């Protein structure tokens, strides 16, 4: 659906993106992650035809963005929350977009309702909060009811209530089968909606995997709490497992399952107070992968 192929972008001497390739699966929510300055925004802008690549190409449904017959009905995008004329009302901003795209003004009201901005739509955008501007950007992205959404940091400026609203909106949009590419630095938010993750660092590709696969690969270990922790540690190490001690009665065991540890403990009649797989977060997986890239 979205295909980035050997993309390179240089701004004079600065290489923003270098030989970047990845595919965004149709109907999936793909998180596009990377530290600040990794080249995420540049990549998204190349996909949307706003920035010319130095080499390579990015296509949406097999076409360059500028080749799309009706871009507003095929791709919706949120890029930055400051792209509004401050003297124009939110409603009129959407009307100018709708007029250019040939979308009926009735759809403007539907989009405003979708982002819960109907009551504030008559006010000048200059008086909007950052969160309200983000909602207005989303309304503009949804005007043409597109099948593909490209969202650059859409949670920026949203309060916790707004974040929850955004998460639910994204889930709802994804459930309708839309393809969503979302860049964010709020990893905790992304991990709740993303099916896949693409990670870049310093303009280069680092990893693409399903969220589940990434969690599994990052691995959190097994937490084992026991009054006989020292004795258990010796038994587990003898069984070839990697064991670390976090506290006096707490062990963290790698490369194992809870079943295997439980069986070994039962075999040696050792009492366990806790036996749980530690769930790693996307943030941990992300940091691990980008740290690894930094030290390479």
């Amino acid at each position: 659906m979205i295909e980035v192929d050997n993309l390179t972008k240089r701004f004079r001497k600065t290489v923003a993106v270098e030989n970047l390739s990845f595919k965004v699966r149709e109907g999936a929510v793909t998180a596009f992650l990377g530290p600040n300055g990794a080249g995420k925004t540049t990549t998204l802008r190349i996909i949307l035809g706003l920035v010319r690549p130095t080499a390579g190409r990015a296509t949406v449904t097999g076409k360059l963005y500028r080749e799309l017959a009706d871009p507003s009905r095929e791709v919706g995008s949120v890029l930055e929350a400051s792209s509004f004329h401050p003297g124009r009302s939110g409603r009129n901003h959407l009307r100018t977009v709708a007029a250019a795209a040939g979308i009926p003004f009735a759809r403007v009201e539907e989009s405003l309702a979708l982002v819960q901005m109907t009551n504030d739509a008559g006010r000048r955008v200059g008086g909007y909060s950052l969160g309200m501007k983000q909602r207005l950007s989303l309304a503009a992205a949804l005007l043409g009811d597109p099948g593909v959404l490209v969202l650059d940091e859409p949670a920026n400026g949203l309060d916790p209530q707004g974040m929850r609203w955004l998460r639910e909106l994204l889930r709802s949009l994804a459930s309708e089968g839309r393809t969503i590419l979302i860049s964010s630095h709020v990893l905790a938010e992304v991990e709740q909606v993303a099916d896949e993750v693409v990670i870049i660092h310093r303009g280069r590709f680092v990893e693409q995997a399903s969220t589940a696969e990434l969690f599994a690969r990052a691995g959190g270990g097994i937490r084992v709490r026991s009054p006989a922790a020292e004795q258990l540690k010796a038994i587990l190490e003898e069984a070839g497992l990697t064991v670390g001690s976090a506290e006096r009665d707490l062990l963290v065991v790698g490369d194992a399952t809870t079943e295997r540890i439980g069986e070994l403990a039962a075999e040696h009649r050792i009492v366990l107070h806790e036996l749980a797989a530690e769930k790693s977060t996307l943030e941990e997986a992300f940091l691990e992968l980008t740290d690894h890239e930094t030290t390479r």
Partner: protein
Amino acid sequence: MRLVSAEVLKIWTAPRTVLGILLAELAIIAIGTASTIDSDTSSNGPEGIIFPKPPLERDLVDVIDASLLFALILGVLIVTWEYRHGTITQTFLVTPLRERVLAAKLLVGGLAGAALVVPALLLMLVIAEIWVGDRLDFSGHDWQLVGRIFLAAAIVAALGVEIGACTARQLGAIIVAFAWVAFAEPALSIWGTLGPYLPLHAIDAVLSGHNDNSISFGRGLLTIAVYLVALGALAGWLTRRRDIT
């Protein structure tokens, strides 16, 4: 047609800038009209000696030439305010074929520039009617000159759109335009054969038809059309290549 209506809507829904331009224009026209009439009524020589001078009607029509300056500024702003406020991103997302956006802006800019002549003309006529209405008798030639001001305003506004598209910066475009008017063209006018074919001279030929050092109306129109096409091609090329970051 979609793009043209969107461009009209952009002007209509952010009226403060246009109103500011309009008020400044009307102030200049009011001052110009008043000083022209005042100078006409008080410039007879002593003891009944009458100096030859152009008719008042012609001088009053010349006052509304000032609209061209505001048409140029409006043309520049129609493009550069999009870059200044970042709305150009949304504009190019909706219409990725940027040449189409530029073409729509040229059309709307030209029409808006010509439209700016209407309030200037009306204000001049109202002031003149109140002050010296009994003396005024505008001829067909005067109205022909007014028609030429409409045409010149449309051309100048379109040039403003193209300058704005080339620079993409509001202040930069206005500085470029004024630097040309104040320094570049007067300096280049030194070359006698080149002088009449420079942009301002060509516009002057469109406005007045003939001057001491001027080309004909038709040649002036053709010359300015060449400038419009050349600058438009450059503006299109730069707009197409520009990264919107």
